[in-house]
């Protein structure tokens, strides 16, 4: 499972990089989304995927049972997902405004109009 998730994160990252290198701004956004997902998955996988039960302390116990998953990477990934959502929402609006102002989503065209 650990290896499968790691390879998946790598694949997502590779596809993200490929999309970012295209000239289309929409593909740029999609690439950033995939890269963000890859990073979140890597963060999640980093804590280890060996746990079998939810990280809740039983009523009679003082600490977590050994079989539970590590909650910290999950909390970190959750935070990162929320931040990533906000950032991508902004980037999508930005691309839409650029498209409306310039009339194309070709990043090279956007730069040329600047001159």
């Amino acid at each position, binding site marked *: 499972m650990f290896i499968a998730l790691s390879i998946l994160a790598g694949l997502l990252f590779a596809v993200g990089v490929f999309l970012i290198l295209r000239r289309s701004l929409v593909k740029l956004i999609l690439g*950033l989304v995939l*890269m*963000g997902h890859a990073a979140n998955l*890597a*963060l999640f996988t980093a804590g280890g995927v060996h746990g079998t039960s939810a990280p809740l302390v039983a009523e009679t116990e003082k600490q977590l049972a050994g079989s539970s998953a590590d909650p910290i990477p999950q909390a970190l990934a959750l*935070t990162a997902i929320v931040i990533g959502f906000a*950032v991508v929402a*902004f980037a999508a609006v*930005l691309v839409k405004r650029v498209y409306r102002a310039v009339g194309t989503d070709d990043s090279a065209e956007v730069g040329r*109009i600047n001159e």
Partner: protein
Amino acid sequence: MNLLALALVLPLVGGLLSLALLKKLIWQQVVCLLLFWAHLALSIVLLVSTAQGESWQLSMGSWPVPIAISLRLDLISAILLVVTGLLMAGGYTFSIFDPDKRSHRPMFAPLLMLLSAATTGAFITSDLFNLFVWFELMLMSSFVLMTLGETRKQFDGAMHYVATNLVSSAFFLIAVGMVYAVAHTLDMNDLRPKLTLIAEKRPGLVLSIGTLLALAFSIKAALFPLFAWLPASYPAPSATVSAIFAGLLTKVGIYAMLRVFGSVFPPLAELSQAMLWLGSATMLIGVLAAVIQTEIRRILSFHVVSQVGYIVLGVGFISAESVEVRVLGVGACIFYAVHHMVVKTNLFLLGGIVYQVSGSTRLSETGGIARVSPMLAALFLIPALSLAGIPPLSGFWAKLATFKALVTHGQVVAIVCAAVAGLFTIISMLKIWNATFARTAETTPPLPSKQVFRMLLPVGFLAVVTLLLSFQPDLLLEISYRAAESLLGVKL
């Protein structure tokens, strides 16, 4: 109440207040102006008390230390907080007097407040993931500030800025995950001994995680060869925004590098060596690109890159053999950063005034300002000569400290690069002076109005700060060396 918490709460509350006053622009400006100056005063109080040996700390939710996310203030953070306060207070004052409509958008002040809160958080946090969160908050507010005004030029710059910085954030996040995977903690003080232990067994692993972090921070700091986003985006927004960005944002990246490699990771010799090379390349290439530009703000943007090269040399000293060399290098780096932040922000603000006086910042379309307004010319000369490193201004002391450290460390290549870059800095400052201030223009610009005079107030304030640093360099230099000692955990 803990003053450290207040440093963070003040700008956050200010952001909320200014959102509540969206429809009453005058009141919003009055409240924000007061809060920005109050934040500066608070930072100075914190710096003075930290310099006297007081330690400020705060653990979220009162959890015990390695479990809680803690905020900690040491000397380097306190110094940078004060400079942030200076730039924000000066910059916001300028924006009120600036006729540029983009500075009078209702959303301008809340975003600037949020940026101030996020930078404060990044400087005082003691948790690696928390640092990532503050970085993201900083990015988010800077994205919107950069596009405020919605001109085509801003859109083009913002696309570069957004895309590059998001890639850097992804690298940062993955590196944080890897740190947690090997050390099972993210608290900076807790990480040091654990990473040192791991590095003894598996040096390659720690080095690769460090390199990934360095990559993320180098993009944010605009190091060679990852600086192309900076000159593409910084000249586009309003004068205040580019001034604050140029002074502040790249330096937060360098601070993160100093913090992470100076006090979290064990000394990584390969990485330090790489930073010395990259720093040398950055200062040369940045300044060479600046010399051929023909627009004031583009010249200044490439200078930001070049100066970042000087500052990042400090990271190259962290794993030096002798303790003295480490402290000398990192101390010089802190001094240089402070000098540079004040001077660079001031120059960008002056660029904004030049635009208001002559209607352009292209060198070919400006001229003759020295005759119309000798005061403006004099105020330009202070930061410009300081940037070029002319004695006795602050840039000279910053360069002197850097050269002293480089000579003690025996880094010949970096010394040569720094000297050559310094020469070209003088040339490009002279270029602005000759074209914009000294030359007789075909159409003499109209006399500066009262509004322009008012814009000179914050510029004059920052110039006074530069003069203070110039004539009392020992004061800051001593604190910088002490900050380096406490950052690196050594004693001279």
